[in-house]
């Protein structure tokens, strides 16, 4: 008996104060004791809502019961706000395909988004640059505000509300895990206790509750994580003149990468990862000084050294000799004239990776499983990739009549995604560390490396393909 009690994992979290009145969309009491949900998604952010949506629209989940738990309130918009939100995401073509599979891409297109066709990444310490674009100048990716994506997902969830129940303002306090196989009278399902004291039972719990995942902690899954000594500053910027604005710009400064992402012909979004002190300074300085700092960050060549310049010219000459390439001269990003008031925000950065993505009756997706530096714009795309893979495995399992919480298909999802995510996480971390220094040997190494990669088109295509998944 004692052994059994020792195994069940309990995690008490402090109850959130001041819960509002229950919304009418909660269905309780009579049905509660008998209802065993097939899937409960804990966390209604971009990735969690996308997961619930994808399952709700999946054909093999027609008669299954899905529940989405969201701790925050429901966000409704009567109409699209005129000011752009400062939190944007770069959506890869693979993620766009996922969103369109359950009809969330069209609402996004009807609201607003910006496609970009080229990406220029260059160094502050040298002339080296890399330019990504597709052969026929197809869209490489889309810059969409997070709020717009969330609104589209909410709309799609409402349309399928007979299969997917969404509980807003519901925070899970405690999770009770089942024993490995049926013991006398112990429930084989996962039990979730909510803030209002009610309990849910589910055959599969999907944790999509962000990088401080309560689900992951309750399950006792080890998480390899460290904080970067960087914070990201985001803002909405006004360009000095209207341009076609379909290029994403990123420059690696010694303090961290600064990126300019197109939002419209006259607006761009800033994501500047820099040291904590500098970030705090940027957020609090007055607008003119802020704009000047941004412009000089993109335009100034103060960090160039002659040695590196001549070394890079030498390699460029050699590359041009071996392979007649189209001359990719360094292009300059549009200059910034102003910044939206109150749009400057900062948030800390770190890396995280869960050692296990799955346990019996548990799966982690999105930031709960992995947290990455924004320099590659891959955070939410990895999350959407997780959704895509997990839905594929669950759908096949449902069509085979399998128990949804069974490890056999969950392990398949974990293998798929860990392979992809670990590589991307390692690469992003490596890039961050490589570009955080202005020590000459490393600068030389990365200058030549960048130039070489730029010259080898198949390699660039591979990188783009990997990042577009």
């Amino acid at each position, binding site marked *: 008996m004692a052994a059994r009690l020792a195994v069940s994992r309990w995690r008490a979290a402090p109850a959130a104060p001041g819960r509002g009145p229950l919304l009418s969309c909660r269905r309780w009491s009579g049905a509660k004791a008998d*209802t065993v949900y097939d899937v409960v998604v804990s966390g209604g952010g971009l990735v969690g809502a996308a997961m619930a949506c994808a399952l709700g629209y999946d054909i093999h989940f027609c008669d299954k019961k899905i529940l989405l738990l969201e701790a925050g309130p429901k966000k409704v918009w009567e109409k699209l706000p005129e000011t752009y939100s400062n939190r944007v995401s770069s959506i890869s073509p693979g993620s766009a395909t996922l969103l369109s599979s359950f009809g969330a891409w069209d609402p996004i297109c009807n609201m607003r988004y910006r496609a970009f066709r080229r990406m220029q990444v260059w160094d502050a310490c040298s002339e080296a640059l890399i330019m990504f674009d597709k052969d026929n100048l197809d869209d490489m990716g889309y810059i969409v505000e997070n709020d717009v994506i969330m609104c589209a997902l909410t709309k799609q969830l409402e349309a399928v509300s007979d299969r997917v129940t969404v509980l807003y303002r519901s925070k899970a306090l405690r999770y009770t895990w089942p024993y490995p196989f049926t013991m006398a009278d112990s429930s084989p399902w996962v039990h979730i206790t909510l803030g209002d004291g009610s309990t849910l039972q589910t055959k599969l719990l999907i944790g999509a509750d962000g990088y401080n995942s309560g689900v992951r902690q309750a399950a006792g899954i080890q998480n390899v994580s460290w904080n970067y000594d960087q914070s990201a500053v985001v803002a909405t910027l006004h360009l000095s003149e209207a341009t076609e604005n379909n290029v994403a710009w990123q420059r690696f400064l010694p303090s961290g990468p600064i990126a300019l992402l197109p939002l419209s012909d006259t607006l761009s979004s800033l994501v500047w990862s820099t040291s904590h002190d500098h970030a705090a300074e940027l957020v609090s300085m007055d607008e003119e000084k802020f704009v000047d700092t941004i412009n000089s960050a993109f335009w100034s060549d103060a960090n160039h050294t002659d040695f590196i310049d001549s070394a890079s010219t030498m390699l460029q000459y050699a590359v041009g000799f071996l392979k007649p390439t189209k001359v990719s001269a360094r292009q300059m990003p549009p200059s910034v004239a102003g910044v939206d008031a109150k749009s400057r925000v900062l948030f800390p950065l770190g890396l995280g990776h869960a050692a296990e993505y799955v346990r019996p009756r548990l799966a982690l997706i999105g930031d709960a499983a992995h947290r990455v530096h924004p320099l590659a714009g891959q955070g939410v795309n990895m999350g959407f990739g997780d959704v895509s893979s997990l839905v594929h495995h669950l759908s096949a399992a449902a069509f085979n009549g399998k128990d949804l919480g069974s*490890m*056999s298909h969950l392990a398949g999802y974990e293998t798929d995604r860990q392979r992809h995510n670990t590589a991307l996480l390692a690469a992003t971390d490596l890039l961050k560390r490589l570009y955080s220094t202005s020590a000459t040997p490393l600068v030389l190494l990365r200058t030549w490396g960048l130039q070489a990669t730029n010259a080898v088109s198949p390699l660039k295509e591979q990188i783009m393909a990997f990042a577009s998944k």
Partner: protein
Amino acid sequence: MWRGRKLSSSGNRFLGVLRSSCWGTQAEGARLTRSAENQFSWTPQSKPWVFSDYKIMWFKSYRMTFACLNRMKIYRYPWTRLYSSQSTVDSSEIKTFLALAHRWWDEQGVYALLHSMNDLRVPFIRDNLLKTVAQHQPGKPLSGIKILDVGCGGGLLTEPLGRLGASVIGIDPVAENIKTAQHHKSFDPVLDKRIEYRACSLEEIVEETAEAFDAVVASEVVEHVIDLETFIQCCCQALKPGGSLFITTINKTQLSYALGIVFSEQITGIVPKGTHTWEKFVSPEKLESILESNGLSVQTVAGMLYNPFSGYWHWSENTSLNYAAHAVKSTEQEDPVPEFVFKGETEELRHKDSTNPGVQEELKK
């Protein structure tokens, strides 16, 4: 990040295999009923290793290295699915089952092979049944189909079929198995309604409800039956005309003797000696001839192969070890034989197309 764990967990697995093989040999002999209770008292003590594995790389590491030994042991347990009826029960086979009646639902335990086999047999049954249906409801492809699962054991195959929407009756002669199955499905309200379990024999079911099922599934059963001919006849009786019979079993070849008997039982000793009887294995040719002679036309015979390292089953051209067969009962009766008298009468009644209420009652039966 996870590599370091594999070594420790496979080490744990090795200990686990040693313990479970000792456990297996204990189950033999006359102290079986007592040992069945001992198994229950065993479980708390054996738990620590189960749960220490549970914490770390569960499924993946289990499949590596030493799992192979465990797999060979599991390889044989599915087939001691025994069969009971007045004429077809083999009481010696019942004993081994009883000892493991509560271990059915451990996906990593002795029945892991059977759990894994669901990846092949459920799609096999589902796809062949869907061919007979014009339209199916997405989400519940088998809804409206009545299935009889003969020798259902703990309900490993019954539950997936129930989840796909079918109404399933699972029968098994071992009451403990039915108890485990009943207990397991009781937690799922949807399955509870769709599945019914009975501890009885095939003959008893057929007496009550002849020609009531769209499909009869006898998976890993026919190699334990004493009289195969009678068994197939009963299955046929239980089927509606045009209904499907699904059988999975082991072939009677030198290879199945070498791997299933010699290697598993005599060399490694994972399987207790005497649990398999090679003479009772059925070759596909013999099965086909019995099926055809009972009015069932064989549609498919496909080989299945188990990979002990990955833990997955695969379809194969080679039927020399395991194979699956699908046969369909013909819709016309040629010669009414004494035991088919009842069926013959209903055929005649249908042909007469009578609206006599007395006859309608006959038809309803």
